[in-house]
């Protein structure tokens, strides 16, 4: 217990205190002269958010984007992780490095690069136009598609790593056993490999979902004003308008969503854990 004390203190200072402060701010009044009016306790900020279809729409869009990004990451990362996990050890390291190398470049720079690639006179449109496939440039920038592309690229590694870890730690004799018992390679995958990789899939999905939901830079740069998400709304209220109570309320809603995701994950996997594993 004594040993974890420093960690707890660190958590207290850098996490619990800011979160508590954020929550307290969100339930107090807003005033132009003091920003937070501590004499008023109110749920007005939450009501304003939850009763305005504009903000509820942003909430829905945020979740929707995160779901799509998570699914695409899963579909793309699983085969890659599977492929790498089946390589010999030394090559695994090299391939992982290749797949994880985007992490070495800052999100802002990667996103900026995407904005150049996707723009109306960018590589994609130039290529398609050059091939004579399109007359007018495709409007990809400043759409959900651009944001999804950017987020998938940025968060792919967070899906790939846990799935890879789950697959690489699997005893290969299990698949051999399944095939030996009469399962075709496909069925061996479906009944053995995949179920056993589910903790990795779930961990990756939760990570990517949470990261996508709280993404700020990528939706702002690639989506412009047309793809509004909770994080950019919270930023705008907090920084541009100094309406910290409303900004905090939006943040608390985002945090609640995140915690709910983790809670669902925990719940599902506490049950699942009794059934499996490691």
């Amino acid at each position, binding site marked *: 217990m004594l040993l974890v004390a420093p960690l707890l203190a660190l958590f207290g200072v*850098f*996490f619990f205190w*800011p*979160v508590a402060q*954020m929550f307290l701010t969100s339930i107090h009044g807003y005033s*132009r*002269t*003091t*920003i937070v009016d501590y004499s008023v306790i109110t749920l007005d900020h939450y009501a304003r958010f939850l009763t305005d279809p504009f903000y509820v729409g942003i909430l829905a869009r945020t979740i929707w984007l995160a779901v799509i990004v998570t699914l695409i990451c899963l579909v793309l990362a699983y085969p890659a992780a599977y492929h790498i996990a089946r390589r010999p050890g030394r090559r695994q390291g090299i391939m992982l490095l290749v797949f994880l190398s985007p992490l070495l470049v800052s999100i802002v720079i990667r996103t*900026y690069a995407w*904005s*150049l690639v996707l*723009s*109306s*006179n*960018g590589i994609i449109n130039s290529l398609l136009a050059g091939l004579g496939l399109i007359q007018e440039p495709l*409007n990809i*920038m*400043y*759409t959900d598609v651009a944001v999804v592309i950017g987020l998938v690229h940025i968060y792919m590694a967070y899906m790939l790593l*846990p799935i890879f870890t*789950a697959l690489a*730690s699997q005893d290969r004799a299990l698949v051999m056993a399944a095939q030996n018992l009469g399962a075709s390679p496909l069925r061996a995958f479906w009944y053995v490999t995949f179920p056993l990789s589910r*903790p*990795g899939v*779930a*961990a990756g999905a*939760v*990570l990517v979902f*949470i*990261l996508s939901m*709280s993404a*700020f830079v990528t939706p702002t*740069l690639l989506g*412009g*004003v*047309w793809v509004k998400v909770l*994080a950019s709304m*919270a930023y*705008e*209220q*907090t*920084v*541009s*308008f*100094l*309406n*910290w109570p409303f900004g*905090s309320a939006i*943040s608390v809603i*985002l*945090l609640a969503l*995140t*915690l709910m*995701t*983790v809670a669902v994950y925990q719940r599902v*996997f506490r049950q*699942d*854990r009794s059934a499996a594993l*490691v």
Partner: protein
Amino acid sequence: MSRGYSFAALFVAFALVANACAPGAQGQPAAAEKTEVVVSALGGLQKQFDDFIIPEFQKDTGKKVIFVPKAVSTELIADVKAQQANPQLDVIHIDEGPGYEGVTLGLYEPLDPKLVPNLTDMYDLARIKGDIAVISRTSVLGLMYNTKVFAARGLKAPTAWNDLFRPEFKGHIVMAHSSTTFGPITLIQFAKMGGGDVNNIDPGFARMKQLAPNVLSYEKTAARYGELFTSDQAWIGVWSNAGASINKASGAPVGFVLPDDGGYLLGGMLAVVKGGPNPKGAQQFVNFMLSPKIQAYLAKEAGFGPLNKKTVVPDDVVKAQQLPYGEDQIKKLVRVDWQYLNTVRPAWTERMAKEVETIH
């Protein structure tokens, strides 16, 4: 194993949300000693600070300036407010609009005319009641255009606000986002074009909606303007002469015009942070920034119109930077009431989001 995963997920979730949301959570400069003055301003001025302002101030006063760059003015005010209990900054230099938020919030220490003697040489419009802060420079709002694209396509350079509505610009117009200083002024100008004014803003929104299908994007930072014009995605946009000057200096192929049908004054505010680490140094720095030497330097290098009456700027600089220079010229520019605009800005932004930014 799965317990480890979930803990990691939880931690990342917390860390992300907490960091994204906590105001002023960014790194802060270490507490300064008395020989240092901590100044925060827009990052576009980094070069001017490094090249001239910091060394000159050191030469004049023996004090060192620590420059803290920020991307947008509002972020800077948010920082000062977040640090209110324990201020880390001495002086801030920001756009007038967010600057007045600081006045409303009582974040500033009034200027001391004894320590800031240059105050007496400023134009009247530069002075703020009680010298709670000072408007140190002006720039003008107008239209920036992509000289490369215009030349290549033989387009006629813009001269008036109405040029924004030329159909050939469809998909290549950059507007200042309504949460910035320039956004609300553009709205007011559009309202005027439609027969309204600051108190009758609906016609402004109508014109915004009319223009929306042609807009490439609504941006908040000089950096994004630079990117969009450099990559030829943007052909024309609402911007200031000073902003255009910064973009030009960093290699963007841009020109600037002050529209015939309405020039707006964009003030830049200097203020001393209340309770800052070096109060005297702060006042000295403000005085230094108001000196004709610096005013002339910023006119030449940043396109900032001087507000110290004694500043002399050569004609070629005035022309090259399209400076508002001299009392007559400055008086012709329209000034907006930021104390009022700050109260309506959030509502206008929300309305823009709901009514205009849905049109693509």
